[in-house]
């Protein structure tokens, strides 16, 4: 709640923040596109100006999918791809060899990886992990790991309260609302930095 208050007043006082660029990578079926949309909504509810978009190869299960989110305190004019993000959310770790961190993340950037054990990566990055797959399965969500990833993101990024994410999840998930909220909260607790 204190965090909500701080962020709200920050925006309402008209301070401008630098655009935060967030990138999601994963596979069709993980919920990559909706993950970015829910996070955009959460930022929007907390008073920020988000801009959210996706890149599709073919729209099919298993195909690599990327989603993008920019967050600012005012209108965003940048209408182009995010090459190197401030925050990278890797929903399918097996894509990392194809999508190396050095090409997708700024130096000093934050990466959150869906992995079942601490994930060692090379480079000047802040690394965090969460076993979103396990959480999603145990919450009866199968391969849809987006709410778990977002819960973990809220914990490690420290720029958005879980409260706004819960509101966004309520609006966006078409079914299994309780399961999704449980995954969100559990991942918030279980996210670990490395």
């Amino acid at each position: 709640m204190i965090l909500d208050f701080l962020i709200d007043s920050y925006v309402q006082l008209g301070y401008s923040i630098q655009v935060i660029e967030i990138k999601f990578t994963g596979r069709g079926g993980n919920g990559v596109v909706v993950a970015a949309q829910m996070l955009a909504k959460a930022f929007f509810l907390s008073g920020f100006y988000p801009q959210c978009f996706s890149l599709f190869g073919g729209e099919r299960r298993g195909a690599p999918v990327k989603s993008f989110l920019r967050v600012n305190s005012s209108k965003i004019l940048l209408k182009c791809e995010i090459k190197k993000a401030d925050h990278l959310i890797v929903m399918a770790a097996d894509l990392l060899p194809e999508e190396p961190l050095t090409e997708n993340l700024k130096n000093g950037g934050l990466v959150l990886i869906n992995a079942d054990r601490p994930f060692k990566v090379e480079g000047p990055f802040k690394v965090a992990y969460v076993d979103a797959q396990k959480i999603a399965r145990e919450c009866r969500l199968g391969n849809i790991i987006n709410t778990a990833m977002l819960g973990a993101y809220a914990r490690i990024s420290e720029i958005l309260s879980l409260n706004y994410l819960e509101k966004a999840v309520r609006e966006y998930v078409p079914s299994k609302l309780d399961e999704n909220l449980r995954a969100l909260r559990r991942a918030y607790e279980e996210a670990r930095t490395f």
Partner: protein
Amino acid sequence: MAELLSGNHAIAEAVRLSKVDFVAAYPITPQTPIYEKIAEMISEGKMCGQMMRAESEHSAMAACISASLAGVRVFTASSSQGIAYMHEMLHFASGCRVPIVMACVNRVVSAPWAFGTDQTDTLSQRDTGWIQLYCEDGQEALDTVIMAYKVSETIFLPVMVIIDGFYTSHFIEPVEIPEQTLIDQYLPKRNLPNRFDLSNPAFLQNVVDPPNYTRFKKRQFDDTLKARRLLIEADKEFGELFGRSYGVVEPLELADAEIGIVTAGSMTSCARIAVRTLRSKGIKAGLLKIKLFRPFPYNEVARYLGTLEKVIVIDRNVSSGKGGIFCDELKASMYNLKNRPEIYGFIGGLCGEDLPPEKFEKITLSVLRAKKPWDVPKWIHRMRF
């Protein structure tokens, strides 16, 4: 009230706010979400009006023409091959002087088969007699659909409201949704003529002789030119009511500029950043965003670009064997001016190729160094950045 909306859904909201009576359309990526959202709003009772699932874009446009002739407010949307398939009906629409508003979501015209944005689909319809308005983002698209009805129902000409596929259609951003009561005030229901009289049936488009045909075409031509003034007024009135207006073109930092960049559509946003960066480095760069393409804004182009030394036109479209279409139109429109700039044409952003601000900056620097302009456009993807 602001809501998080994609450009497509912003257009659907505009259709709802405009209290459209009849929508006939056929799905095609990247336009389909407009069609789906309208269907959803009608089925949930959030929007009155009827929706017709046409069996093709050609039939959709034919249905829109007929419905409009019966005096109701009509909307459709399409992209790419769908617009191409409508082509002959587009001539019929402008010739029948029906006030249809169509949202066009730019996408490459196949082959090769692809999904990204390319304005060639709408620019290929240049001579169909439709008014064409190119929008930069979802907010502008929403506002422009509403303005388009006002102008269209005044001058009885159909209007295309055009956005870039994906960059605008699928980018989700906060969009301000106007109050319905204010929209009703701005865009009241008109008593459009019903040209079908069931008790006295008659053929609508009879064969005419050359003098009548020419008189008709001259009148259509003159009215199309008049649409520019109407658009300027509609935009001004919209601004007074809602606090947002766009002009038929938008000049940025051109007053003291030496070099100007000309853009249309979503690429304008990144070009704005580029101009700011170039200015901060002491380069007197400016930008002209062209929103209105038909009728062509001769006066504005001459006023804002006539005094510059160099003008860069970036075309997200191509007329094979000639060049970028905006560039060629701009050159032709300035030919009779006493003072005119050198015009440098570039083609880029095809199929949604990324055009970040740095590319605009580097293009500007390269043109500043150039000794004389070229006839055949340079392709941005071949340039070294």
